[in-house]
């Protein structure tokens, strides 16, 4: 960033990239919250009336399911961001 002039402005592509990124983050963090704090804690008792194999469903989310979903979220984000970066020509 050494050749900047005095006035500072982000390029249009950078701005649009950042807005898309934030929108994606909000969606993914909502899922992150829903599977762990939602299904595993707040609605655990309700979900425990259903079974997945020998697991009560809420218990399964708390001790197994949320962890699998966490992994899926990160790799979905990796792939999605790769596409965004190509789209705006900002990839590293």
């Amino acid at each position, binding site marked *: 960033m050494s050749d900047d002039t005095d006035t500072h402005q982000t390029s249009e592509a950078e701005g649009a990239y950042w807005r898309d990124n934030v929108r994606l*983050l909000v969606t993914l963090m909502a899922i992150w919250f829903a599977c762990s704090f939602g299904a595993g804690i707040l609605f655990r008792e309700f979900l425990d009336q259903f079974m*997945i194999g020998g*697991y009560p469903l809420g218990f399964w989310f708390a001790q197994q399911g949320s962890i699998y979903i966490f992994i899926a979220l*990160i790799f979905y984000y990796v792939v999605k961001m790769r596409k965004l970066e190509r789209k705006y020509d900002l990839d590293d």
Partner: protein
Amino acid sequence: MDTQTLIYLFVGASFALYIGIALWSRAGSTKEFYVAGGGVNPVVNGMATAADWMSAASFISMAGLIAFLGYDGSVYLMGWTGGYVMLALLLAPYLRKFGQFTVPDFIGTRYYSKTARVVAVICLIFISFTYIAGQMRGVGIVFSRFLDVDITMGVIIGMGIVFVYAVLGGMKGITYTQVAQYCVLIFAYMVPAFFLSFMITGNPIPQFGLGSQVNDGSGLYVLQKLNLVLTDLGFGEYTDGSKSMIDVFCITLALMVGTAGLPHVIVRFFTVPKASDARKSAGWALIFIALLYTTAPAVGAFARLNFIDTVNETSYSEAPGWFKNWERNDLIAFQDKNGDGVMQVRSGDAFEGAPTFAEGTGPSGERLVTNAPVADSENEVYLDRDIMVLANPEIGNLPGWVIALVAAGGLAAALSTAAGLLLVISSSVSHDLLKSTFKPDISEKGELLAARLAATAAIVVAGYLGIYPPGWVAQVVAFAFGLAAASLFPAIFMGIFSKRMNKEGAIAGMVTGLAFTFGYIFYFKLANPAANVADNWLFGISPEGIGVVGMVLNFAVAIAVSKMTASPPVEIRKLVDSIRVPRGAGDAHAH
């Protein structure tokens, strides 16, 4: 070969491997010492991160904790994995793009302030030392039980090993030894878990086993049987917790945010080549971690079931060999309260506090304890939760080499985490305090020497804490996560996502979050432990979960103060813009 020889062989071979790797990957420059040269493959870094992250507590204690907490143990499972989503999405790629060596580097530069940098160093040192004392204790436990050397000697050997590869190799040496340590520890964890799962359910995959039927012909699922057995003996149901919902919520959140704010974890993402690699690497780290973390609840449940099956209503004279082994190491005790020579496992404590053993043995041959019995509980067996994983191979009658493997795995878990922590302590001293704050004219060679000396000093302090563990060590583990959640995480997060956040706001926020969280934990854990009951807690939140309130205060104070003070200078806003896009600074303006 007998088991003891096998243990020496396995542990000795694993140590030789770590030292060999360290000699091969010595650090020659500060960049190699701090961030392994910045060229580590994201999958390799993910594996190293997993070993760095999974400490003696994860390997040795967690399954045991879950075995006794049941559903409440979920706070650790979700709390210690969910933080990686925050890391991958909210912090790691931006910090990598920023491209410096340490966490205080980011805070000091982003908030254009030496004060902010020093506050960050103080948080970091406090968090890391709290954590490292626990690792050294883990090393001590493994050595004393498996290698028959006393704890002091065990800690000194452990210190020696860490010294060789952390001081010589720096981050570069640590990264590649951690990869080896991950392989050792995950193998050591999974093998007994496969055996146990197969033994109890007929399905060798523990994650499926926990959801399967017990193969005793009863047709009951594992969790159903566990609920039945436990309620019969007066315990609560396994799948139902005893903590309040708000407490479970806050502890889980504090652990997640704390994970994302732990300096020794964050700094691992400085070692990959590109910002996009940091995201990928966090995903791989979580896969490697999840392998152990989805197995642990199964191990916990199987161990609990197995323990009750083999011990409850068994006469002491027929107690299995492992029971007496661990009794010899003070971690199991039997107090025959009704004098029938038969061990009753019930809910409640058998006696007050941890066992203090008297000379001599009781009528059935058990070691006598001098503790006052708890009159309103029929329970007669004291069990230290930490032994659940360590004793599993013996409980399951597994061959000697499995026991040897578990010993090597426990040491790998403790040593890898200790090394990672030592590195962030030493780099914050040599880089943030010396180079960036007090002695900016220090040469590259001088800084590297300072880093090695600081690492050496930190090892000595950590070893001292391991040999003479202060009573508060176990009490303050909550500190590390609560403080990281309340101090470092909000400062880093706002540094990336808000261009308006300035140094006044960030410093005020960090100090508020730190002071509040520290004060709350200090009061309930150290100053007035008698008051540490739910009725006295703020909003019913225990000290373990209070970091969440500290974090909220940090955000609130930082935003309020920043609104009343001047915006950050234009270079800082440019810096934020540049870390938000992955493409390198040099390319950003090339058209």
